[in-house]
């Protein structure tokens, strides 16, 4: 952070304020303010098991005839349902089918999730396949058979990796009994016997009803059902077998309040031609030297980089052109309330051949700033590579001053490399001392004019594509080139996604199921603010460079952009077919509890 958690919570609050103020002012009569909670003398017909219950032949989940419209009430119920079914999904993942009975009403009637009925198999890339089921033909069954179908489906798997029930939308009926029609996306991930991955994705309309204080499933209608398969996974995790594994304290355990968002640097530290890895952590750093037998040997202590601990980004670069890889580390630092320095300064470890020596202060690569991604570029083409520092905001001092274009972050820094003898900040003169909340940047000569340009992505803001003028200055031409992407920018990387030889751009943003769920309920969908918020919650962007050198954002329907709360993107050709692929880090904070706040 600095984690943007606090800001996210505030964003949520702001969203609520906006939503609630707009709905209470324009959409709701005051008499509806207690809807859904009003006591009623009518007993729920489904409170008890219905002895005369007859299974219908078809299930069509009806929509509430008098839906609750107060958005915060709807969201509260949606979240209750989502969290209730997190626990249900967990029992299914454990394959504790007995425990799972609690969530299903005795008078449940719904289509079986796993059953043998009509389907069609189509090919996916890399010898994977997709089986699409004629969902309307899925048999309608009662509680016992419905759970039995899941037991049969998941029981046949060698291993269940995850079961996820996501609430994508919901409507609830006023009055009692309290019930709703919920859009559920169900995901079952695991492997079949032999280890081939399987992924079942089912979209449903579900009827849920609150009985004795707990939400139960009373009906379920499939709207699509598909299974992806491959004989073996594309990648195999080999962290432990190569000696790289390290276990950190998970959130929710005592002690893990210490964290920053740490990356990783790869390079050849000792000149043996093998790729080594360096990364920071809260209490110590790690330097993994690759060995000829395929393993890694942790050597941070021997190389003098185990401490000082902490840090965010790290960068290998030969700044003094002596033929070895020096190591730059960024970190979060800020001035405390009484002017005292808190956090840590930047650091520069100079490679001495068989160990590193920290000389940041001596060489001018220093300073207290909320520093994140470090990017190497020889901006002035003097043969000594310079370093751009992406600076975020200092949240414990000041919140972002805007949700759509925050400008009160730490100013970005460009450290000019003075002939390998030291560094000095030239960002103001270069036009790069932007105060937006910058997490990341990526350098490339995208316009092919010989100098290196810079794309900078900002949280709570817009992208900034900065053209190197060749005279030591940069000019922001984002709008002109069609790159002014609004979003919560977290990461960026250049690539060529349509194999036309021109560099395209990938930007990772955060997206949120809850955020989108809330926004879709807003009636003022055309307002600029809502459009802006939608874009902020929309996810990643791909910008394709056109023949005239400008860019256009690619429609989301072309794929490659749905990556939830995204962090580091990688653009490379993982399947060696000539075309670039994308890997994207996702997820914000996973605690002991699967219930999302």
């Amino acid at each position, binding site marked *: 952070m600095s984690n943007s*958690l606090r800001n996210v919570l505030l964003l949520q609050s702001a969203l609520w304020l906006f939503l609630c103020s707009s709905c209470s002012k324009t959409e709701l009569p005051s008499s509806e303010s207690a809807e859904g909670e009003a006591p009623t003398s009518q007993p729920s017909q489904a409170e008890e098991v219905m002895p005369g219950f007859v299974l219908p032949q078809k299930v069509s989940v009806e929509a509430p005839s008098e839906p609750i419209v107060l958005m915060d009430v709807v969201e509260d119920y949606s979240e209750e349902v989502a969290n209730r079914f997190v626990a249900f999904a967990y029992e299914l993942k454990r394959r504790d*089918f007995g425990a799972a009975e609690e969530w299903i009403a005795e008078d449940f009637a719904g289509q079986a999730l796993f059953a043998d009925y009509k389907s069609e198999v189509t090919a996916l890339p890399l010898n994977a396949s997709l089986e699409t089921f004629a969902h309307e033909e899925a048999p309608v069954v009662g509680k016992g058979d419905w759970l039995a179908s899941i037991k049969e489906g998941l*029981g046949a798997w*060698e291993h269940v990796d995850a079961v*996820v029930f996501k609430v994508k939308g919901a409507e609830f009926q006023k009055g009692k009994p309290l019930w709703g029609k919920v859009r559920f996306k169900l995901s079952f991930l695991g492997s079949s016997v032999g*280890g081939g*991955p399987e992924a079942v994705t089912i979209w449903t309309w579900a009827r849920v009803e609150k009985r004795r204080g707990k939400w139960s499933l009373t009906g379920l209608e499939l709207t699509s059902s598909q299974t992806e398969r*491959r004989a073996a996974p594309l990648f*195999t*995790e080999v962290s432990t077998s190569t000696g790289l594994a*390290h276990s*950190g*304290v998970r*959130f929710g355990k005592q*002690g893990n*309040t*210490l964290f920053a968002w740490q*990356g*990783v*640097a790869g390079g050849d530290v000792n000149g043996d*031609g093998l*790729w080594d*890895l360096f990364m920071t952590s809260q*209490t110590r750093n790690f330097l993994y030297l690759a060995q000829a037998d395929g*393993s890694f040997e942790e050597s941070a202590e021997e190389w003098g980089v185990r401490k000082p601990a902490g840090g965010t*980004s790290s*960068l290998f670069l030969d700044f003094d052109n002596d033929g070895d890889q020096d190591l730059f580390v960024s970190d979060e630092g800020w001035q405390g309330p009484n002017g005292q320095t808190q956090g840590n300064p930047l650091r520069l470890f100079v490679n001495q051949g068989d160990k590193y020596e920290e000389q940041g202060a001596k060489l001018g690569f220093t300073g207290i700033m909320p520093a994140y*991604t470090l*990017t190497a*570029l020889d901006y002035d083409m003097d043969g000594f*590579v310079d370093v*751009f520092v992406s600076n975020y905001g200092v949240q414990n001092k000041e919140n972002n001053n805007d949700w759509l274009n925050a400008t009160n972050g730490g100013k970005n820094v460009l450290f000019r490399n003075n002939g390998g003898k030291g560094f000095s900040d030239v960002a103001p003169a270069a036009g790069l001392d932007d105060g937006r909340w910058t997490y990341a940047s*990526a*350098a*490339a*000569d995208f316009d092919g004019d010989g100098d290196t340009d810079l794309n900078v992505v900002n949280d709570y803001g817009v992208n900034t594509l900065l053209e190197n003028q060749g005279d030591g200055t940069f000019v922001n031409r984002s709008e002109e080139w069609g790159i002014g992407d609004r979003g919560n920018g977290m990461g*960026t*990387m250049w*690539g060529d996604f*349509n194999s036309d*030889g021109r560099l395209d751009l990938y930007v990772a943003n955060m997206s*949120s199921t809850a955020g989108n769920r809330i926004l879709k309920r807003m009636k003022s969908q055309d307002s600029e603010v809502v459009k802006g918020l939608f874009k902020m919650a929309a996810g990643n962007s791909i910008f394709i460079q056109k023949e005239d050198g400008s860019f256009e954002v690619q429609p989301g329907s072309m794929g*490659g952009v*749905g990556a*939830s709360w995204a962090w*580091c993107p990688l653009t*490379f*050709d993982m*399947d*060696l077919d*000539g*075309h*670039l692929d*994308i*890997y994207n880090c*996702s997820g*914000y904070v996973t605690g*002991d*509890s699967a219930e*999302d706040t």
Partner: protein
Amino acid sequence: MASSVESGTEASIASEQEVNNSSFLSFHSSQMFTDGLSFSGFERNKVFIGKGDGSFSDLSNLSGADTPNDSRGALWADFDDDGDADIFVHNVQRERHDLYRNDIHEPGSPAAGFLKLRLRATTLQYEGIGATVTVSGPWGKTSQVMSRGAGFNSCQVPELIFGLGASKSGRVQVTWPGGVVEDFGSFDARTRWTLVEGGEPVAIAAQPRTLPDPLSPGLKVESGDILAKMVFADKDGNRVVLDPAELAADGKPIYLNLWASYCPGCIAELPLLKRKAEAGEMHVVTLSMDRPDAISDAEAILDKLDAPFTRLYITEQPLDTSGGEVTTEDLFDLERLAIPSTLVLNSEGRIQTIIRGPIRK
């Protein structure tokens, strides 16, 4: 035990003072983290396969690299020098360092042509940072940037890997920092080069090595480990000690079969195990993964089979152990355990073989 996971706790090293000095978190955020709540949690990393026209297929679910851990930094590099790029991911908690070996193609597969390129600039700084490399062939022409420091908090290695598909060669052009565009001509597939600005390319010798296979899913032990005494439960949850020396005093192997009543593949192999046990070829110990209220289902299946098996169960209650005894927790990660799996032990308790999947003969 084979597991070499360093379970050192970062927090135990950290002093309270460090916590106070280093934390950027507001009260509410800290509370959320320490309480173990989730916020956009359990989101899985994504794998999008490019089709070359700018569109992508989402194969995340089949990738094996879709960790639900909270990942931040990442890089790709060919750590085993087999021609394709592996992925390293840095997570912020739990299993923090993830290395994913690229197994998309069999090594040497005809469809997996590659060209690995490093740069040596001569006009400006020698690493060629910021250069654009374009490789063309039947798929079109694809450009990549020699980048150090991009993505999020991450620094890529100074080597680019271009896929050539089934093509035997690819044509290479470099736009060097400073703007010189140089056409290097055609290079054969499956070769490694340092491209020198204005000079002759230098071949790089291959250094292939093996990134070893992981343990079988959910097992914390591997072949060769000795399990002298194991503590499990009987159907009523009572402590039972499995002592290989005692059970296999006759020298016959022990087949410790991991199964569950809901697993058809597991049930299907039980008659074969019965025949072998009755023929005196082995001692069969069934260890069921069934939850407590399904143990009766497991017992019913075994009763019907009427085989000379030692029937054991896992229990969620901790069982007393004394020196040298290992429990379910020492042996298995139940969240990931693949069934059916069978550990073949000798009378010493040494694991001879691990059979993943059904026993076929």
